[in-house]
Each structure stands twice: as structure tokens, then as C-alpha cells.
């Protein structure tokens, strides 16, 4: 025993030390990473974010410098809080709250302490910054919008959230990333790659030189500039016309699928979401759940298409050879089926062929056509699948494989869709509302515009897209290949002739523009809202689709104006003006322009929320407003 006491002690101490080493270096030690080493300062060098230009090279989005005060809590030393707070223009409670929040996030990672300092505050603070260990200033680049239009197109950038941080290790807290629109869908192109410098620190938090002579440092890679397909002038004009209205507009160049205009109303000034005022404005816009300005109606608004869908039914009927161009169908102020009745505005006994059917938007004509399509095979169960496949070949009922940040599928029903409602028997009359674009069919404005582009092209379309060109890159193939529809080219001419007649003699007779052959189609869609758990009918949506000129079309568009009543009342006028603006460059139909600018639908939108009973459609009174100031001065 006497001999082994020291012997044992040495061995035991040796074992305890080994265990402690194991605990410190293997069990409790994180995998070593230069990024987490607090002996190494990481200095990020943010590159210039790419600029955004419109299709004509007009600069839309540029950059402006911004300064954030960052904190790394575990490196903070006791400081003169009072002075620091007054420099940052915050009070002590805010200081403590922010500091604790930073610490909870992580004691060793940088956290944004105060964001977006003004240039003046930055100048004063920079001089004194060295006094505050653990705090530093990070220069970033903010967006500078050179325009007030296109908020829904351009989108915005904002601080990354936790989901972004988890998804992509590139980001660090406080980094900015695209949140909506082009900023989001082209984030990786626009952001470039930030550079990083590793700097060896000593225990007084002073830099003593580049870590390993800068071997691991990287240079920032500037973001690429992009050109988008939007025509800024047309976009601005459309947004002006859509003031005091809600809805969505998409205009496409049919020869390329380029989106010329993407309007969602109401909209906001993109500059509202930049810098210090961002968070206040964001909350305001985000909380406006009634007007919902962040909701991109042109991409996300799913509406029943109404009468424009009759064009689709006409094309399918011709392709399936269930009607001929000359066959006349009699309308008895509507269509009787299975003991029910679908009304129409034609005088009783009117005999319409295909072209007049389109021109007058005859419900009876298209109810008959639709039933013939479905009943052509043995039974309607097969017929509706044939019908559905034709419609889907126009890109309806599915996400268009595009480069837009948001979207909706819409809906083109088939037999499977109706399985739960009609498990056994299925007749063409069950779904007859689809004949006139109501019932179960639903589309977004961009889908409908694309359908019109395919009609304008007589049978094919290019996937609608927003990117025109990226510095030093070619566009992906998906945007440059033709997508063929399942309808033969020859069947388009009569339908287009019908659309032309809509302007010449039909429902859009008063919307003509001199010198341009416009082909169009009106739509008036019933819609309902649940008010106090009662399904209540609201004033119809005003819808219009068109393309022009008839030969070699340059623009195809779809206009939705919520609760605007009949198609040519709001949507048709807007469509005609946009076409004239795009093709001619200026406006001759100033009467229509003035009418649109002096009529507001705000009253109409307020009604369902007023809690009072209200009237719709024909029984309503349109709200007249004075002409906006800049217009009267003109």
C-alpha cells in the first residue's frame, strides 16, 4: 500500500486528465469552423445588386447605400450606454431589449442592432465606433426605385427570415434577399456573391492582420443586371387607368410570350418598402386584408372566366367536328335543358351561326355546342375528358412553367374532378355552366391572356415570362420553344373573325379604335361573397380579352375588373386604351380615358363591408370622382 499510493495517484490523475481532454476537445467541442471562430473577424463585402431595366432599357431599380449597426453579444464589453443610445437615437430600454434579443439569437453570431442608419447618423457614429467592442457597422446596399410603378412586378428586398437562413447557408442574419416579384424570382442572379475577409484578432479585439495571409478570402462578385419584358410606359398607363378599381391585367406579346404589362390593383409605391419606413409600411399593406395590395391579382386571382371561355368551347367544337361554321342555332331568349333554363339576352327566335354566336355572346349557342362536345363519345364521362385535355393544351388549369414568383393553378375540371359529386351517372347537362365559362372552370388573368395569345398565334404559344435578358446569359429553352395546342390552325380563323365582329358590330362596338383591327371578347361574371355566413351575390366582374392587330398580332391581353359589372363597362375600355397606347403610342379615345379616370368602384367595394343591405348590377349608381389633378392640368 505504501509503495503504490503515489503510483496509483499518478495513474488516476493521468486518466482524469485524459477524460477531461476528451470532454473538452471531443465531447463538448463543436466541429471547428472558421466562421464560428471568434478569434477570427469575418468582414463581409457586399457586392452591387444587379439593376433592373425595362424592355426599352429604361432603368427601373438601382441601389443606394445603407448602414446597419451590428452586434456580436459575447464580444461586447461594458460601455457608455447613455452616449451610445443617444448616437443611435434609441432609449435605454430599447437598448436592453435589443441586446437581449441578440443574445437569445446567438451570443456569437452577428445580429442587426439598428438597421438603416441615415447618412448623418452614420457619419457621427463611425468616428466613435471603435469605443464599442462587439459592435460594428455593416454597409449594405438598399434598393432605389427610379419609378413609382410596378410594385407587384418588381417586388422588394428585405431581411432574410429564419426559413431563408435554414434553406440557404449563403445567408446570414441581416442579409437582404428578394421577397416578392422579380427580386425574389431572380434573387440569385441579382445578388451576386458576397466577398469575405478573415482577419486574425487578438484578445483586445484588435485586428492583427489577415488570417493566413488572406488565403481563404474571397472577392465579391457583383450581381448581374437584368432586363425585364415589361414596357414601363404601358405599365404606368395601365396602373393609372386601374386607379380606384381592383383587378388584374396581363398583356403578352404573342410572338414571344413576353409579358408587356402586369398590373394588380390596388398597388403601392415600391419606394414605400425601402429603408427605415419599410417595416411601418409593410405592416400597413400587409394588414389591409380587404384591398389586399400584396395579393397579385394578375397571377393569383382565380376568377371564373365567363364569356371569353366561349372562344375555347368554339375551338374545341370545331376541332371535334360537332359544329360547322355555317350551322345556325336558334336562341329562345335562353336555353332549356332537363327542366331548367339558362337565360340569354338574344331576342327570342334569333338564329346564330358561329361568328354571330361569338359576336353576340349567345348562351344558347354555346350550351348546345358544349353538350355536343361532351355527348360526342358514348357518354359524357369520356366527352368531358376530351374537352378538358383540349383546354389544358392552352396552359389552362395548371401552373404555367414560368419565372414568376407567385401563381395559381386555376381549374379545368375533368371526369375525375366530378367523381365525388356525380359518382355514377354523368350527363352533359350537369356541367352546362362550363359552356359559358362559369361553374367549375376557373382561370387567372395570366392564363386567360396566354389563351388569347395562343388564339392570336393561331394555335401555339410561348410560355409567358418576365425576363428579357440577363447580362452574359441566354434565356432558358422553356421560354424560347413553341408550345403547340391541340387545335388545328384552320379552326382559329372563324373564331378570330367572330372576335373581330365583337368590335365591329357586337358587344364591344363602342370601344373601337381607328386604324386598328382589334379582336376581343367581353365577359360578365356573376360572383358571390359570404357575408355574415350568407352567400350574397355581388355586382358582376367586368372581364375583357383581346388581341391586336388581327394579322401579325403584337399584343394579347386579359383584363379583370372586380365588380365592374358588364364586360365593356370597365374592362373593355381599359383593354382598348392599352392596345391603342401600345400600338400607336398615344391615345385618340380620350373620351374613354376620361370616363375611366372619373369613375371609381371604391363605393362598390365598400358595400359588402358596410353591414347594410345593398343593391347590385343594374340597380347600382356609379361613383363619379373629379379628374386627378395632373390630368386636368394637361
Amino acid at each position, binding site marked *: 500500500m505504501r509503495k503504490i499510493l503515489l503510483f496509483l495517484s499518478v495513474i488516476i490523475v493521468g486518466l482524469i486528465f485524459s477524460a477531461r481532454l476528451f470532454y*473538452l476537445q471531443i465531447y463538448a467541442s463543436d466541429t471547428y469552423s472558421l466562421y464560428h471562430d471568434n478569434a*477570427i473577424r469575418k468582414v463581409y463585402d457586399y457586392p452591387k445588386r444587379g439593376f433592373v431595366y425595362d424592355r426599352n432599357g429604361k432603368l427601373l431599380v438601382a441601389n443606394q447605400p445603407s448602414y446597419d449597426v451590428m452586434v456580436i453579444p459575447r464580444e461586447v464589453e461594458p460601455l457608455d450606454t447613455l452616449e451610445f443610445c443617444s448616437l443611435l437615437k434609441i432609449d435605454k430600454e430599447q437598448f436592453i431589449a435589443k441586446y437581449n434579443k441578440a443574445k437569445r439569437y446567438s451570443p456569437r453570431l452577428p445580429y442587426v442592432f439598428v438597421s438603416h442608419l441615415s447618412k448623418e447618423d452614420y457619419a457621427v457614429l463611425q468616428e466613435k465606433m471603435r469605443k464599442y467592442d462587439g459592435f460594428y457597422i455593416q454597409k449594405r446596399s438598399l434598393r432605389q426605385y427610379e419609378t413609382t410603378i410596378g410594385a407587384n412586378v418588381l417586388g422588394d428586398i428585405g431581411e432574410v427570415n429564419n426559413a431563408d437562413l435554414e434553406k440557404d447557408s449563403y445567408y446570414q442574419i441581416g442579409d437582404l434577399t428578394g421577397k416578392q416579384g422579380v427580386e425574389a424570382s431572380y434573387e440569385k442572379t441579382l445578388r451576386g456573391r458576397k466577398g469575405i475577409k478573415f482577419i486574425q484578432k487578438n484578445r483586445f479585439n484588435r485586428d*492583427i492582420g489577415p488570417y493566413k495571409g488572406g488565403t481563404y478570402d474571397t472577392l465579391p462578385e457583383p450581381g448581374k443586371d437584368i432586363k425585364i419584358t415589361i414596357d414601363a410606359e404601358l405599365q404606368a398607363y395601365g396602373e393609372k387607368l386601374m386607379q380606384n378599381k381592383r383587378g388584374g391585367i396581363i398583356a403578352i406579346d404573342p410572338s414571344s410570350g413576353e409579358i408587356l404589362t402586369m398590373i394588380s390593383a390596388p398597388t403601392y409605391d415600391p419606394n414605400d418598402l425601402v429603408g427605415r419606413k419599410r417595416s411601418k409600411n409593410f405592416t400597413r399593406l400587409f394588414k389591409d386584408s380587404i384591398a389586399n395590395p400584396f395579393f397579385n391579382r394578375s397571377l393569383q386571382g382565380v376568377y371564373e372566366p365567363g364569356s371569353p371561355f366561349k372562344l375555347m368551347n368554339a375551338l374545341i367544337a370545331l376541332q371535334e367536328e360537332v359544329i360547322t361554321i355555317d350551322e345556325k342555332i336558334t336562341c329562345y331568349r335562353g336555353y332549356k335543358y332537363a327542366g331548367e333554363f339558362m337565360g340569354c339576352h338574344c331576342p327570342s327566335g334569333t338564329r346564330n351561326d358561329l361568328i354571330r354566336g361569338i359576336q353576340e355572346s349567345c348562351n344558347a349557342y354555346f350550351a348546345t355546342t358544349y353538350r355536343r362536345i361532351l355527348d360526342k363519345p358514348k357518354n359524357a364521362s369520356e366527352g368531358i375528358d376530351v374537352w378538358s385535355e383540349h383546354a389544358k393544351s392552352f396552359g389552362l388549369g395548371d401552373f404555367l412553367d414560368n419565372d414568376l414568383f407567385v401563381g395559381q393553378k386555376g381549374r379545368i375540371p375533368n371526369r375525375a374532378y366530378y367523381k365525388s359529386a356525380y359518382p355514377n351517372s354523368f350527363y352533359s347537362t350537369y356541367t352546362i355552366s362550363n359552356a359559358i365559362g362559369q361553374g367549375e372552370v376557373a382561370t387567372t388573368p395570366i392564363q386567360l391572356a396566354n389563351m388569347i395569345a395562343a388564339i392570336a398565334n393561331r394555335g401555339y404559344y410561348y410560355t409567358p415570362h418576365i425576363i428579357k435578358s440577363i447580362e452574359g446569359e441566354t434565356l432558358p429553352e422553356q421560354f424560347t420553344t413553341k408550345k403547340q395546342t391541340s387545335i388545328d390552325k384552320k379552326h382559329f380563323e372563324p373564331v378570330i373573325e367572330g372576335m373581330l365582329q365583337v368590335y365591329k358590330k357586337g358587344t364591344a362596338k363602342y370601344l373601337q379604335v381607328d386604324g386598328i383591327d382589334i379582336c376581343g371578347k367581353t365577359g360578365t361574371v356573376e360572383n358571390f361573397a359570404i357575408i355574415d355566413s350568407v352567400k350574397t351575390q355581388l355586382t358582376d366582374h367586368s372581364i375583357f380579352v383581346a388581341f391586336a392587330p388581327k394579322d401579325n398580332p403584337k399584343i394579347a391581353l386579359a383584363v379583370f375588373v372586380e365588380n365592374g359589372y358588364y364586360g365593356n363597362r370597365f374592362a373593355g375600355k381599359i383593354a382598348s386604351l392599352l392596345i391603342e397606347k401600345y400600338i400607336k403610342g398615344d391615345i385618340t379615345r380620350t373620351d374613354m380615358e376620361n370616363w375611366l379616370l372619373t369613375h371609381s368602384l371604391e363605393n362598390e367595394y365598400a358595400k359588402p363591408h358596410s353591414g347594410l343591405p345593398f343593391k347590385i348590377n343594374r340597380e347600382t349608381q356609379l361613383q363619379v370622382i373629379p379628374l386627378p389633378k395632373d390630368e386636368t392640368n394637361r
Partner: protein
Amino acid sequence: MRQTDRHFKFDWVTILLFFALVIFGWFNILSASQTGDAIEYLNFSNPYSKQLIFIGLTCILILLVLSIDGKFYERFSSVIYIIALLLLVGVLFFGKTINGATSWYAIGSATLQPGEFAKAATALAIAKYISDLNTDIKNVKDQMQTFIIILLPAVLILLQNDTGSMLVYGAFFFVLYREGLPKDYLNIILFVTIVSTSALKFGALPTVVVSGLFLSVFYYFRRKKMKLIQPIGLLILCLGLSFSIQFFYKNILQPHQQDRISLWLRLEKDPTKLEKMKKTFAYNLNESEKAISSGGPYGKGFMEGTRTTGKFVPEQHTDYIFSTVGEEWGFIGSFIVILVFTLLILRVLHLAELQKSQFSRVYGYSVAAIFFIHFMINIGMVMGLIPTIGIPLPFFSYGGSGLWGFTILLFIFIKLDSNRINEW
């Protein structure tokens, strides 16, 4: 034949382990004291250049120690001891104060720390005294005389305000115990250590309750005859000690001493207070643990330690040199260093037991015990297992006096050991 044998009489294993530690130690000093500029071996303002000189002089010292006849150390041990004591007294009057301790003679820019040499001198004196035929360590009077031999240098060093080095003299307990010091001493030390640590860590009452249970079980299964008064007496002692140590901790210790103990025993749970400790007196320890931990299993590589390069651990090339090993060489390197130290101490211990003369055995035992105390306190401190006590890691820490002191201590034993065969 006898001519060649002469060279192999020295224990080459010990010598090899010694050089391994000195050389690896120097590389770590280089890493810990480099400034990021080009390495200049001949610029003697750098610790690593100076240490290179110290190592060179050490080699000469080794030859000197080995060339002196072994009998000399035994014969002149008293003289050496007295000279050492005089040097220790002298330093109190003429010494230079560095880091609060008046432990250095300054000759120009060179300094010498007599305390580092006093350990060897005391070891010689103890060996001489115990191996004397008239000494019987079981005899209380002789025990007292032994204690005085140990305490004289220890107290002088305490007067220099070098508490750490004083504690090293506790190493002699192992030597005395080996040579027959009554078992009661060990029992008392163990009893006091365990009961007071437990009373501070777990509280007085739990300690007494657990001891009570333990003692009753022990009494119930007793083999020898034992009066009931013995365990009851022990329990009363335990009770008294537990409460008085708590009283002592709470009412007599200074706040900063309390803090050290509470940090060591992990008594402080309040995170803000812990943070404050890490910023103040526990700064070194905290940085040292972080540096070791950041090394991970394989380390960051020689001269690649970011915390070492950034000089995050103060005093890293002296007392905290082991944190450099931890950061740059990782678990593997640190483990090997611990292994080599353990092997060296065990080797010396093994050789001591082989000695034929009691003088050599006691001296060898002292050498092993002194190395052990240094090893345990220094590395224990750097890894946060022991309260902060500033003593160097033998052969590793920067400093000439320390290196020479340990070298002399070790090589006198190697010389004595080499005479083993001649002694019949």
C-alpha cells in the same frame, strides 16, 4: 567492456522522455510567443529565442551534473540545503518583484529564481536526513524535524508571495509516507479533504448524513473489534468540520477567494455572475479552456492556432503553455503529452524503488513526487479542474530557472541511479 558499459549505465528511457518534453515544449513556446512577424531565432527579446539559449545551457548543465561524483550530492546535501535557504532569505531583501512575487534575483536583464533550485536542495536534505541510521520516521520527534526541513523553504517561499510554489512542498508527504510515516497522517488528510470538499459542494447536512450512513454500515460489518465510540467520534468530528468549513468559507474568506472556490466547485449557477467571473479573475481559465476545446480531436496544426496567434490566453507561453498544445495539437497531441509525463513520473518512481541505498530511493521518490505535483496542479488548472494556482509545467513552460531547476532535480537522480551497480 567496462568502458562501453559506462555510457549505458544512465537510464536512457528517462533521458529520452526528458528531451522529448523539452523539445516539444520549445515548439509550443515558439507558437505561443511568435508575433506574426518572421521568426528570428537570434533576436533575444523573443521568448522562443531565449528559451533556445536556456535549452543550450541546460545541456551543459546536464554534463556538469552527470560528471560530478554521485557521493558528492549525498555528502554535501546539508551544505547545498543551507545555501538554498540563504538564497531564499536573500531574495526577500534583494529580490525583484515580478507579477506580485518577490522571487527573482536580477543581474542586469537576466533573472534567476532561487525557489526553483530549492526543491532539489530540499529533496537532497530530506533524503539525507531520512537515510540517516539514527532517524526513525515513526518517531514523533524525527517527524517534527523532517517537517521543519520541509517547512523552512516552504515558508520562505510563501513570504515571497509565491503560494503556488509553496504547495509543491506538499509533494514530500508522498515521500514520507512511503518511508513509514504513520498511516494516521494519510487518514487525516483524506478525511479533511473529502469532508470539507463535500461540505462546500453539497452542504454540511448532506455530508454528515452520508458519513453517518457510511460509518454505521462500516461499524455493522466490522471485522476487528471496534468500540462504538470510534465511529461516533468520527461522526462528531465530521459534523464539526463540515460546519466550521462552511463558516470559514462564508465568513472568514475574502470575497475573491470565495469566488475562486465557488467557480472551482461549480457552485455559482447565476449566468450573469458567471459571465462576470469569466471577464475578471477567471478570464485566463475561460480563454484557456476555450483554446483547448477549439482544438478538437486533431488540433489546428502547428502555428495555426487562431486563439494562440491572437494571444487570447494571457501567460500562454509560461503557466498556460498546455493550452497551446490543446489548440494546435488537439486531443491526440495533448493526450500524448499527458502520457509522456505519466510515463516519465512512473519511470522515475520505478527506478527509485530499484535503488539499493535509501538516500537514492528517497531522493528519487522526491523527484517523482515533485514532478507529479507540478503536473497535476498545472494541467489541472489549465483545464479548469483545480483552482487557479500559478506554477509552471516542468520542461514545457518558458523560463530558464524553472528549466534548470527541474533538470538538476532529475539529472542528480539519473546520476545517483547510474551508481546503483557500483554500490555493492
